[in-house]
């Protein structure tokens, strides 16, 4: 299944579950306008495409760390840890990547797609260590952030004004 097809599937599920209030389907972000399809946002995932050495993952609302498996999907509030001499690479659906260096701890803080504009909003929190993000040009309204305990680096789509 292609990424776009999967996203549309998720959007459909999200719409189905919008009124059930039981927490099923993709989780709607707190500021998403779930009643208005034009501004609907859905949570998406990043895929672990490479893991070398001791790489572990902690799922959202879990305290346990499990070995990472290449190909697994990571979602909001999941965390990834690399030990000494270990590496991990996450790939985003639009083709960008996040390389996680040795002795790092990274949490996926936000990964959203605005359905109509296809703009993506992504935030990663680096608690320790190093990450490198390689990103395709962002779509209008798209943004990408990396936070640490002391700072935030952000990349936003910029409109070019012509006079």
């Amino acid at each position, binding site marked *: 299944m292609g990424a776009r097809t999967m996203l549309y599937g998720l959007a459909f599920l999200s719409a189905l579950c919008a009124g059930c209030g039981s927490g099923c389907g993709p989780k709607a972000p707190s500021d998403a306008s779930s009643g208005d399809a034009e501004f609907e946002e859905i949570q998406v995932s990043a895929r672990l495409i490479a893991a070398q050495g001791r790489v572990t993952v902690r799922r959202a609302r879990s305290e346990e760390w499990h070995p990472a498996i290449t190909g697994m999907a990571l979602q909001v509030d999941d965390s990834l840890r690399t030990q000494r001499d270990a590496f991990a690479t996450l790939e985003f659906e639009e083709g960008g990547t996040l390389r996680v260096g040795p002795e790092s701890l990274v949490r996926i803080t936000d990964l959203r797609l605005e359905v109509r504009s296809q703009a993506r909003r992504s935030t990663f929190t680096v608690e320790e260590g190093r990450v490198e993000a390689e990103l395709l040009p962002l779509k209008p309204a798209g943004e990408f952030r990396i936070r640490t305990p*002391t700072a935030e*680096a952000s990349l936003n789509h910029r409109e070019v004004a012509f006079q």
Partner: protein
Amino acid sequence: MRFGPVMLSGLLVLGAAPARAQTAPGSTTLPAGQTLEDLAERLLGDREAAEEIRALNRMDGGDPAPGTALRLPGTERQAALSAWRVASQAVQQAVDDGAEEFARERLDRAREALAASRSARLRADYAACQRQADEAWALARQARQESLERRPRKSLLAVSVDAAGTTRVEVHRGEEVKVTAGKKSLAVGPGQAVKIEAGKEPEPPRALLPFPQPVLPPEGAVLVTPTVHFRWQPVEGAARYVLLIARDSAGLKPVRQLSCEAVFYLFPSTLPDGTYYFFLRSVDGQGMVGPASPARRFQLQVKSGEGVRVESAPDGKGI
């Protein structure tokens, strides 16, 4: 100096060729109970070379009678084969760099030339094999370059935080990055980096150091010793260097990261045989890591190399 396929072929001939291929006599006879494929594997290390022996001896197919005198390919075969391998790797590198999408026409021509090179080899026309391989190599390089120029330029930024809570943001290329700490924000452009100590405002952006120029191993080298000698040109202002070894040309599948202050590193490899790429970076006195050098490919053939040493400097002299 052009460091093209011909020279690479020479390097590979010196090192990568199985010793038995170099000592193969000009002619032989087919022993009883052996097929031409067995003979080709024994003398040339390649069962497919049976077809070349048939072509060289003007045979239509099948095996000759035992005891029949057979002409064997000379050293020109090894040179042609090496050129074909180098071209084949160049095509793969173009594919890795997006040529399927952004330079399809040139890539297809490179593949056609590569296929023609193989056909010529199977006809035992080694001069044509090498000529076609060189053409395939040149087209693949052009396809890769075209792809690199045409594909959307990705932004690349790195963020790190150390045990003291000091954050470093490095913008290697692409868009300007906004860095915020406390109530202060500043823009960091490509080629710049900024450091933020815990509880303090960001320092003014500073320029990143350029990457060091790699020297050893040369592009496409086939290494048969377990210790890999990496060497690069010094960069003024660099406090240390970072060497990354990966399984892919994009560096998305790293296997080792090494750091050192010298301009060389003797890496006692325990990596399995295969194709690898390495990248070099300079690190300044503030710990800012600069952009990576372009991927340089090498092959480890420690288990299959039969102890033949193959490291050569780009000028052709040994290290």
